[in-house]
């Protein structure tokens, strides 16, 4: 299997992700742990982690974050392998990563252990299954902090209970354009879920990418939290599809074809402009306006991020980066036309 962002071919559901927060009994939480404490913590988790998770996931590698260059750390954030907080505070921290990066385990983020499984499209059940297996394997070897009443014990009380955040990344350009997205955000809030823009909030969300995730973790089972999330996601997907049909066809064609023209011919391209134009391209492919591979826009959104580009082409100034980005994106689009 290859990385999640290379295979996002669904019209609305870009990716699925499950995160589990776990801690070890008798160890201070990360905000009170010293540098030596993080070192010992990494040792404990590294020893407890199985080397191989079998057919679907394969080999797991332990990475000492002290040895990871800053550009690669930032690129890991850009492809959603680690959190921004983990990137900023990575001294003596550890990362356990599968070859396809679908499984990543951050050691010493806000909790001792943060298990993450991410996949393209609508795959939330599979994500949970794998995360649950890793959790089982770890609790075989480590005394995971747990209380019968409060569930899994976490540094922040907002994660108590199942300690799980399950989420979908959704592409919602039509709901954003029609202004319905704010109303949806309000109403899912009332039932224990959140919707937030990934690259900026509301109309600022250039890429129209939104994360829908569960908020309540205590008083609900993992399965019920996932079922709630799926049922709300399906309703949002339906609303997005309805909203797409009600956009004037000629305006939509105009916007999509202009976006394609710009991306094919540009010489300087900022990441904001790239995100906004690729979002139009993705909508255009879904609506049958242009014929490009369905997985192309999301792949380029990630590969065109600043540190992903620097990883590939070396360190650059801002201006050089925008020129390199224009060249990289236009070549990729021209290749497919």
């Amino acid at each position, binding site marked *: 299997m290859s990385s999640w962002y290379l295979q996002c071919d669904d019209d609305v559901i870009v990716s699925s992700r499950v995160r589990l927060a776990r*801690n*070890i*009994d*008798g*160890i*201070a*939480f990360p*905000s*009170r*742990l*010293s*540098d*030596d*404490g993080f070192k*010992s*913590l990494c040792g*404990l988790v590294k020893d407890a982690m199985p080397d191989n998770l079998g057919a679907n996931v394969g080999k797991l590698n332990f990475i000492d974050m002290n040895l990871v260059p800053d550009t690669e750390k930032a690129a890991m954030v850009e492809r959603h392998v680690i959190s921004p907080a983990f990137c900023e505070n990575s001294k003596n921290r550890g990362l356990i990563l599968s070859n396809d990066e679908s499984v990543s385990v951050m050691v010493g983020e806000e909790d001792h252990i943060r298990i993450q499984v991410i996949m393209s499209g609508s795959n939330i059940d599979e994500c949970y299954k794998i995360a649950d297996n890793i*959790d*089982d394997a770890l*609790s*075989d*070897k*480590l*005394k995971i*902090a*747990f*209380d*019968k*009443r*409060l*569930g899994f*014990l*976490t*540094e*922040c*009380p*907002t994660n*108590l*209970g*199942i300690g*799980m955040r399950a989420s979908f990344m959704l592409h919602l350009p039509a709901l954003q354009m029609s202004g319905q997205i704010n*109303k949806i955000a*309000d*109403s899912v*809030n*009332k*039932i*224990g879920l959140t919707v937030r823009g990934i690259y900026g909030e509301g109309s600022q969300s250039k890429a129209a990418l939104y994360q829908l995730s569960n*908020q*309540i*973790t*205590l*008083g*609900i*089972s*993992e399965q*019920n939290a996932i079922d*709630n999330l799926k*049922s709300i996601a399906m*309703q949002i997907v339906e609303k997005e599809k309805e909203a797409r049909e009600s956009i004037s066809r000629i305006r939509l064609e105009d916007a999509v074809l202009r976006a394609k023209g710009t991306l094919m011919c540009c010489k300087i391209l900022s990441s904001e402009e790239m995100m906004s134009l690729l979002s139009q391209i993705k909508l255009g492919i879904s609506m049958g306006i242009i014929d490009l591979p369905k997985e192309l826009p999301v792949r380029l959104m990630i590969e065109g991020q600043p540190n992903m580009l620097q990883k590939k082409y070396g360190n650059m100034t801002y201006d050089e980066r925008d020129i390199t980005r224009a060249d990289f994106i236009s070549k990729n689009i021209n290749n497919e036309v």
Partner: protein
Amino acid sequence: MLCEKCGKNPATTHIHTVINGVSATKHLCQFCAANQNEKQTSLANMFSSMFSELLNTGAIAPTKTCDICGTSFSSIAKSGKAGCPSCYSVFFDELVPYIKRVHGSTVHMGKHPQTNAQPTTLVAVQNTKDKKIEELKQALKNHIEKEEYELAAKIRDEIRMLEQEEK
């Protein structure tokens, strides 16, 4: 199906909730769904604002600390974070009302880990407060040298919080 709240508009939103093991499904129209008054604001913000309420009323016994990590309840209240897993049993009674307000429940309904693993005996990972304070002071010095005063102020507050706890 018509909305079960107003009975006028077609129900377009079907909300499944499971709270304390009781599952229910509400069928609402888009207007009633939007007006549901069980409004929840951002959970993390709620937590620290509820705690500061408590701090101001002076309802906190300042002397009790966690045996494992040395955290006092006022530190948890200030930071919105527990010091270690044991803090939840030490400060259970103090924390429960607030946990209930955030989650609407204090009954875990999910997975129970199957384990025979023994607790870790490493002292290096328990109360590392003195070391942590040393490290924070070094970081504070570095930030001041680099004239990063905002970061420095944040770290100074963290040091104060740790130093105020009972030894």
